[in-house]
């Protein structure tokens, strides 16, 4: 720390406070990710050319499959919905300085818990009560799971990135054990699953809008969390802790409680994603819950620079990429993993682009040639 401080030249000195200058600085946070996306598209085009495929065909199919038709939009939004929630599970802990990458575990356990509570309740209580119980339990289980990583960080100084990732594997193992053992529906032969919650209890899209409930709830939570982090004393304390834990302790802030709460909020978001997968898509819990939404959410959160609002459009973009995967596979004869490769390229380029912040003269308010 000391060394880098001393070697760096004096910080850009003149910061004028004009609104235009502030706008320029804000533009940096949009322009650099867009630039990173463009670079990854270019690199991916090289990959396609090397395989003898046309990049223009790929990107036009990507557009058509993700956003070109009403059907593809529906598909895109359905995939985007859990991404909003799993990205929030990364973005919120990031504000307090933690890198949580195990959202997948909370998705899986949240989904499992929702399906499990539905077994005794389905048919006994009205749909709305059933869904409410499922959602609350899913969020609670998710909160406990990621909150555990936060607690270990605080109490035992265990690296939260590693522990949350390892906990995700434990969660997947618990899911597989449960659906193949104690909670297996005898009727599920090829694909071991819990008993279905019942077609009549499943969530349909929001009437009139034809978008999944998961997305509407996800956006509402994103807005609520944005306000929580930017406009409340809790969020302020979390940002102080994330920005300088030493100063936070010297201010007497309850650093441990803040860490556990932020990770629990994160886990609750991811757990809800699991609930929506069960109640909106699958109708039961099975291995399909571990579809990688938790991991793609990391990518979404980083591209959104951990801003809860920005998470929404980025999640829709990645939902579109995922939705177009099938079309690309069929039309171009490319393997299914191609889309994953595109995601990976975006992630690597994005991380590399982090070094650009603060270096481009254009965005420096007051800087003149």
């Amino acid at each position, binding site marked *: 720390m000391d*060394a880098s401080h*001393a070697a760096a030249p004096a910080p850009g000195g003149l910061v004028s406070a004009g609104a235009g200058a502030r706008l320029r600085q804000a533009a940096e946070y949009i322009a650099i990710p867009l630039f990173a996306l463009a670079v990854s598209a270019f690199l991916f085009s090289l990959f396609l050319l090397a395989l003898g495929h046309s990049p223009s065909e790929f990107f036009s199919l990507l557009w058509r499959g993700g956003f070109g038709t009403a059907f593809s939009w529906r598909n895109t939004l359905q995939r985007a919905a859990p991404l909003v929630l799993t990205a929030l599970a990364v973005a919120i802990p990031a504000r307090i300085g933690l890198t949580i990458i195990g959202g997948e575990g909370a998705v899986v356990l949240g989904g499992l818990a929702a399906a499990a509570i539905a077994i005794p309740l389905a048919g006994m209580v009205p749909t709305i009560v059933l869904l409410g119980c499922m959602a609350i339990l899913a969020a609670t289980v998710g909160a406990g799971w990621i909150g555990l990583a936060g607690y270990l960080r605080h109490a035992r100084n265990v690296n939260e990135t590693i522990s949350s990732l390892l906990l995700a594997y434990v969660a997947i193992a618990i899911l597989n054990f449960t659906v193949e053992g104690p909670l297996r529906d005898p009727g599920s032969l090829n694909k071991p699953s819990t008993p279905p919650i019942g077609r009549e209890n499943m969530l349909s899209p929001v009437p009139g809008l034809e978008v999944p409930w998961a997305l509407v709830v996800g956006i509402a939570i994103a807005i609520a969390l944005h306000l929580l982090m930017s406009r*409340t*004393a*809790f969020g302020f*304390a979390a940002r102080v802790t994330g920005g300088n834990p030493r*100063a936070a*302790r*010297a201010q*007497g802030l309850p650093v441990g409680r803040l860490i556990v709460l932020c990770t629990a909020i994160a886990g609750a978001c991811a757990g809800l994603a699991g609930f929506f997968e069960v109640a909106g898509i699958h109708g039961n819990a099975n291995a399909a819950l571990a579809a990688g939404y938790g991991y793609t959410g990391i990518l979404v959160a980083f591209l959104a620079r951990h801003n809860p609002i920005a998470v929404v459009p980025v999640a829709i973009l990645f939902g579109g990429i995922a939705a177009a995967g099938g079309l690309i596979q069929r039309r171009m004869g490319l393997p299914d993993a191609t889309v994953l490769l595109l995601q990976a390229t975006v992630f690597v380029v994005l991380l590399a682009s982090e070094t650009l912040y603060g270096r481009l003269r254009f965005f420096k308010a007051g800087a003149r040639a």
Partner: protein
Amino acid sequence: MSGAIGLATVGMTKIFGDFTALEDVSIDVRAGDFHALLGENGAGKSTLVKCMMGFQPPTRGQVLLDGKPVSIADPRAARDLGIGMVYQHFTLVPSFTAAENLVAARGHVPAVVDWAKERKSLDAFLETTPFRVPLDRPVRELAAGEKQKLEILKLLYLDQRFLILDEPTSVLTPGEADEILGLLRGMTDAGLVSVLMITHKFREVNAFARNLSVLRRGRLVGAGAVGKVTTAEMTQMMVGDAVPRPRAARVAHAPVADAKRALEVVALYASDDAGTPRVRELDLHVEPGEILGIAGVSGNGQSEFIEALTGQRPIDDGRVFVAGQAFSPTRGDFARFKVFGLPEEPLRNAAVPRMSVAENMALRSFDRAPIAGVFGWLKPATMRARARDLVARYRVKTTSIDAAIETLSGGNVQRAILARELSEAVDLLIVVNPCFGLDFSSAAEIRNQILEARNKGTAVLLVSEDLDEILELADRVAVMSQGHIAMTAPIGETDRNAIGRAMAGH
């Protein structure tokens, strides 16, 4: 070791945007000179030496080495020419030992280091210097004073013949400072090195430097031989026409019957990060309206004591009472007992560098009315209005209250934090090295603020490595040595020698 080299700048000018940081500065440091560079914060001293070290290209101007123009494109070029610098911030690798830091500094380290051989040559090298630094402990465990010694040792080890020192003694005790500067002066007298030292301390200039140059607002406003320029003249050149605020008078408080002690620490124990006990059975107390100055050589447990007191480090054993009641360093108790503080390195301990000035000024009050409303809902307008008021009242120089606090100069960060900590009623103020690295008038202003708080009845616990500061401010002095209080005395009943002896552990 070959002889010293001389370095001169000719018409050095540096312009950032529309701000001229340095204008037509020509200084001449001859071979074997011990040259002091004086000036207030922002006078252009750092810019000048950065241009000489190749960190930034000058807009105009030249560097002459022994009279011949040289181009110094980057710090590596400066090093190859034999020009080395000790920075205000440490440039050591914290996880490396002193020995590893020295060997790594060479740049050309063999793939496999023969440590037995290196140790022998390092020991031989150390024999030639009076500095004693433990070679085998990680640098992060060393005290600030030891780190600074190691920084200077590093330059000597690299055989640099022109040394630029940026406030090298700010973390040292007067004894250590005299020792280091005396050694350097001896080496310049022997024609082994030349020294260009940025400093604020007139005492050191008068005692050790041979020549001096003074910068103000980017211009060279005076130069001459030490002894020919008086201290009053130096001050005049540095501060120009600005009149520093008059020093607050010390108010004598009438003794109050059954007044509760503002702070009482009983048999406190605390350990460093490695678990080594650093504070052992420490007892002290501070009365309301009194400044207790804690003197001591750095690394005698002062940092650990303050960190334990303010919640940055667990207390192993012992009790802390504030206003007669048990105190724990939580946000609730800080607010209830009105305990505030000005820790050392405020950007590291008391501020969030990337948050704005306004937000940093709200760190104490954001979760209370009037900034926080129902359910902790923040009122940014109130927060900003308060910050604007504090910025004006405490004369914090910032382009905007929305600028990140890390963009402010050191003195202004200190002022901003002090404004925050003194803006409400304060019963106990914990202050550590408040003027570290500040220029003359900022330091005077901050000391005045502390004294004013004391006059209003605040109890002040002042930990300082600058004995002059303690002698100036404290009502009572306590000396910390090896983790406990070795001596306490009212300031009128002791002197520099007695304190020095206690600091040395006698």
